[in-house]
């Protein structure tokens, strides 16, 4: 598999690759660096790169002001909860679409995707009223339902494309052996579907974690996730770059680390069956 590559070519690509990679990563890196500066150092001209007094005061202050862990736990609950509910709904639907397709399958899929295109803000007031009447405002349950519905089309789509890659012959063989539907799923399909499900889970978690409209507008305290945490640090009166950077770092670190660790699964599933 390995190609024979000349050393010169390899070094050339190393320089190019790292330059491009660092350029793309730079805004994230700069946020992390700035989070260790004082507010005055954060806006100094020219910018200070490494040689400044590194300080943790921003993190201390951010934590003193708002209990980060409460927000983070809500983010975790919402991301995992909505993903779990989403799986329960999406797996059977995608399975049916992949293995018993009808003429309307594609239309249903695209209709599902099209529900993602309506601007959320247009339906804020109706949803707020419904939530108020059902007592769902500022509850994790309410938000899990919303986030699950927002991500459901993408989950069905991903699982569908992934399941379709599974050779039908295997299923047919199992059916010949007289396997029931239940067995078909648990013993034949599941093992082959795990990677696809894993990457679907990842994408759904990322999208739910970063959703910032509903999570801001339907929560106050009990269910408020990290997006609300950020909203209390963006553009206050006074210098705020360093504190904002610290808060941002805290808000994106968990999902970034998870994403990095699981990027291989993510890559496999993200292809939406696009790779043949």
């Amino acid at each position, binding site marked *: 598999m390995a190609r024979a590559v000349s050393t010169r070519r390899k070094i050339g690509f190393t320089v190019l690759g790292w330059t491009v990679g660092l350029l793309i990563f730079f805004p994230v890196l700069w946020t992390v660096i700035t989070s260790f500066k004082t507010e*005055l150092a954060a806006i100094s001209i020219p910018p200070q790169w490494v040689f400044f007094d590194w300080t943790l005061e921003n993190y201390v202050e951010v934590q003193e*002001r708002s209990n980060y862990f409460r927000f983070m736990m809500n983010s975790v609950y919402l991301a995992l909860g909505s993903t779990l509910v989403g799986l329960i709904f999406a797996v059977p639907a995608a399975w049916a679409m992949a293995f018993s397709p009808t003429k309307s399958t594609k239309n249903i899929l695209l209709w599902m995707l099209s529900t993602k295109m309506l601007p959320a803000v247009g339906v804020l007031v109706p949803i*707020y009223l419904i939530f108020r009447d059902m007592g769902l405002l500022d509850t994790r349950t309410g938000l899990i339902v919303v986030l699950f519905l927002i991500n459901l089309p993408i989950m069905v789509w991903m699982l569908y494309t992934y399941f379709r890659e599974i050779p039908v012959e295997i299923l047919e063989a199992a059916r010949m052996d007289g396997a029931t539907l239940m067995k078909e799923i648990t013993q034949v399909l599941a093992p082959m579907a795990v990677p696809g499900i894993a990457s679907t889970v990842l994408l759904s978690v990322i999208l739910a974690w970063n959703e910032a409209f509903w999570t801001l507008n339907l929560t106050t305290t009990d269910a408020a996730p990290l997006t609300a945490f950020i*909203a*209390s640090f963006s553009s206050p*009166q*006074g210098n705020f*770059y360093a504190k904002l950077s610290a808060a941002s770092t805290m808000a994106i670190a968990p999902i970034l680390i998870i994403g990095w660790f699981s990027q291989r699964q993510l890559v496999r599933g993200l292809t939406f069956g696009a790779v043949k």
Partner: protein
Amino acid sequence: MFRRALATGAISLFAFVGAAGAQTTLTIATVNNGDMIRMQGLTQDFTEKHPDIALNWVTLEENVLRQRVTTDIATSGGQFDVMTIGTYEVPIWAANDWLVPLENLGDDYDVDDILPPIREALSANGKLYAAPFYAESAMTLYRKDLFEAAGLEMPAAPTWDFIEQAAKKISETNDDVYGICLRGKPGWGENMAFLGAMARSYGANYFDASWQPQFESEGWKTAVDQYVRMMTEYGPPGAASNGFNENLSLFNQGRCAMWMDATVAASFVTNPKESQVAENVGFAPFPCGIENCPNKGANWLWAWSLAIPAGSQKAEAAETFIGWATSKDYLELVAEKEGWANVPPGTRTSLYENEAYTSKAPFAEATLNAINNADPSIKDDKPYVGLQFAAIPEFQGLGTAVGQQMAAAVSGSMSVEQALSAAQQAATREMTRAGYIK
């Protein structure tokens, strides 16, 4: 290490028991400005005095806060027990019966001590509907050292023409200093707050007595012309996206010779921890365009205030909290913990009679004068409450749309005339639709 962990555990256990014993939990929505964040940090003083009330803070950026509380109060969502709102909302919300009048703020609260223009702005039918946490007008902040070096002297009542010449002189002699920094970021509470005040200093209002928008009037033309000229010639790059904060950063970095903005900026620019020019800041009134400036040049009034939504089940506890947060004792508490310069400004007469404060806050007198001179009430030629804004529901959208056009003029993608005529059209359209213009 272990002992410390144990201690922390014991404290949080104690806190938990304390919370469990509490009768009422108040959810307080507030804006993420420094003074409110300080209040959050001083919560303990309140809960010690009132162990039966627990506090839950929801701190949000101004725009997000506004959309949250407005949606909630208009749909009776009941998510908040105390809301932080401004002088724009209070008259509208009070007229809708959305707020609980504040009549039991405590025996030693002394309502009459609240500065008269502020009290007026937060009252309707003689009842106080919100208690001011901090208040502001507008003023001129300038660099004494740069003025001295340029041989300039700030007059006691500067005019815009003087300001323009001073900006020219200073930016010509200093390479890395901008002559003037002003708000350019679009929004009814951003550039329009400034431009509304500036246009008024040229004698122009948002609407005339029959609610016709006035953006094509002489006063607006002169003001916006001069504003755009100063910003493009002597202002910082990117002026069209600079709001209060961006200008504050520039000023604190020593990049601005002059800055006209909210009086609350004064305590930030004189704080040596945040500002590199803390020692060299001078204060003057907001400039004027014409002689006999309306309101003596004080054309801006704003107070972040605490109010209770009608229908709240916890109104009594909420009022107790508001009584604490806006009391004289609270000012003393902040002074004791953080120093007098950090006390929330602009609300109480007694604060400005207190020498401990006036000696620590060089901007005290200028702030007091600006606030006391501001009169936002309805006049013969001005059918709305407000100075830098008009307290009608339509103003938020309309003001922001107009602010967009002004930003386009500053960024040079439109001429001043085009921008004002587009603003006039948009405003007339909206006012006609809302039924003001028959």
